[in-house]
């Protein structure tokens, strides 16, 4: 669908969206990462909050392995808007994906029994008490914490969670905003979350250039100086992004850490299994991390290579992948492949997830694609994994695929 211009600048449109949010919602909070997008959004929201004399909440999920510069920038913003900002700096144990290790496919930020290994200490203002939020469960998933925080903060009233993501960032971001979610009062830049919480995307139509144009026009508004270092490291403004660095997509930015903050990097390597390997190979094409084109060893089929890979993994990880592969094989068995899936198929069809093949399975294994998104699976809800494992044990026996 072609873009339809509104006859106004993106800055004016964002201000109008924020003003509507203040008119409509009794409770408002900003979900912040202190990156470039959420910083600009915070400035715009705080302009409106100050004008109206209202206080807004701010959620920052501190994932321990943060750049120092980001933390300092966060302090600066909180100090700057302290009269109208109610910050929730969360340093609670959160379960996070680690896509750079087969031995530790997840890690827990702020894990209490590994305090001596923590990359840094949480700030004084941080919420560290696990009993602070009634909904909090030890080591809950990031994806579960965020909506539950919204419901808690809403206190039964309509609550807007302002999120600084943009459609131009990636296809996934575009899908999040423009997808089939429930829209609030017909506004396409909103998404109903749960209970009385609605996500609002006031800068959804901004480009990266717009973000930096804002800072150019308003030099008094601080931005995260980490971007200056990223620029010096050779990144374009489009590639410079801040996120949890060990995720499936984010690991490609790991190499930056040791260039920009070597002192933090040393602690990260000690804290998160596989971080150094990720930094060395996350951008390498080939078999090391299954990026782009993969090859099988001589004398092997893709199927036997998959078995070899499974055999080389820690038993727990291999068993997890066997569950996924069993479902994948069983699903395709009933959809045109009664005698098993082919070893390989047309690469384009494989990439589009239209046909199954053992090569696709090998790629998922090499990539450490823990949730097997490459095989069209999605993530589990936290708390349901143990149940899933029990069910899969029975199913694998019944199907005769990797029976235990």
């Amino acid at each position, binding site marked *: 669908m072609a873009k339809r211009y509104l006859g106004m600048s993106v800055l004016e449109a964002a201000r109008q969206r924020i003003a509507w949010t203040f*008119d409509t*919602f009794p409770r408002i909070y900003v979900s912040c990462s202190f990156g470039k997008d959420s910083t600009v959004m915070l400035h715009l929201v705080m302009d409106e909050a100050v004008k109206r004399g209202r206080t807004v909440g701010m959620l920052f999920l501190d994932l321990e392995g943060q750049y120092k510069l980001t933390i300092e920038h966060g302090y600066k913003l909180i100090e700057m808007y302290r009269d109208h900002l109610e910050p929730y700096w969360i340093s609670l144990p959160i379960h996070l994906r680690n896509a750079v290790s087969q031995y530790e496919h997840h890690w827990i930020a702020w894990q209490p029994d590994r305090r001596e290994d923590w990359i840094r200490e949480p700030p004084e203002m941080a919420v560290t008490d696990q009993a602070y939020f009634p909904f909090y469960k030890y080591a809950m998933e990031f994806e579960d914490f965020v909506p539950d925080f919204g419901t808690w903060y809403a206190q039964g009233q*309509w609550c807007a969670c302002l999120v600084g993501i943009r459609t131009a960032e990636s296809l996934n971001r575009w899908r999040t905003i423009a997808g089939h979610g*429930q829209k*609030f009062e*017909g506004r396409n830049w909103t998404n109903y979350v*749960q209970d*009385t919480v609605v996500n609002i995307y006031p800068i959804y139509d901004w480009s990266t250039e717009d973000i930096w144009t804002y800072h150019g026009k308003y030099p008094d508004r601080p931005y995260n100086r980490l971007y200056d270092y990223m620029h010096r490291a050779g990144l374009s403004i489009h590639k410079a992004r801040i996120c949890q660095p060990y995720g499936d997509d984010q690991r490609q930015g790991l190499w930056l850490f040791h260039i920009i903050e070597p002192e933090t990097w040393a602690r990260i390597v000690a804290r998160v299994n596989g971080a150094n390997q990720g930094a060395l190979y996350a951008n390498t094409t080939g078999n090391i991390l299954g990026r782009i084109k993969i090859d099988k060893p001589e004398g092997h089929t893709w199927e036997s290579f998959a078995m070899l890979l499974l055999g080389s993994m820690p038993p727990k990880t291999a068993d997890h992948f066997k569950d996924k592969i069993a479902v994948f094989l069983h699903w395709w068995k009933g959809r045109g492949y009664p005698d098993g899936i082919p070893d390989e198929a047309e690469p384009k069809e494989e990439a589009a997830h239209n046909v199954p093949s053992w090569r696709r399975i090998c790629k998922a294994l090499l990539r450490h694609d823990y949730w097997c998104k490459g095989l069209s699976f999605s993530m589990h809800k936290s708390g349901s994994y143990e149940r899933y494992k029990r069910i899969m044990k029975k199913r694998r026996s019944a199907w005769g695929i990797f029976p235990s």
Partner: protein
Amino acid sequence: MRAVLRLELIGDNYIQHKKLVDSGQAPQPHIKKLIRLWRYGRKSLRPWVARITGRDAHGYVREFVHSSRDYSEANSIGSKGIYEYYALKPGIYEFNECIALGQARRYFIRVERAKITEITREDVEAWLNDTLE
């Protein structure tokens, strides 16, 4: 500011199933189940909220309000725990609330400063008389 109104869709599984049976997308069930569908799957049991804006020959002029549907507390068959959330601007509303399986009630509310108060039909009439004058 909008006020929150939360209504539960009790027996939504029956409503959805009946819709499919009526449109021919699902086969006609056995007589016992058909009776249950007829009893609990009626459209009149669905919650709705309408803003009253005036009078016409049929009664009140109404604008139906869209809701946001939350399945996060739903049970596995969808008979309980599905909620519809309505964002209500100041005004007078009529709504239909499902109070138990197969039972609904309609009543009136006034929304002022994001607060909801139940009112009677007489209050609605009086408000309309004042507003339409």
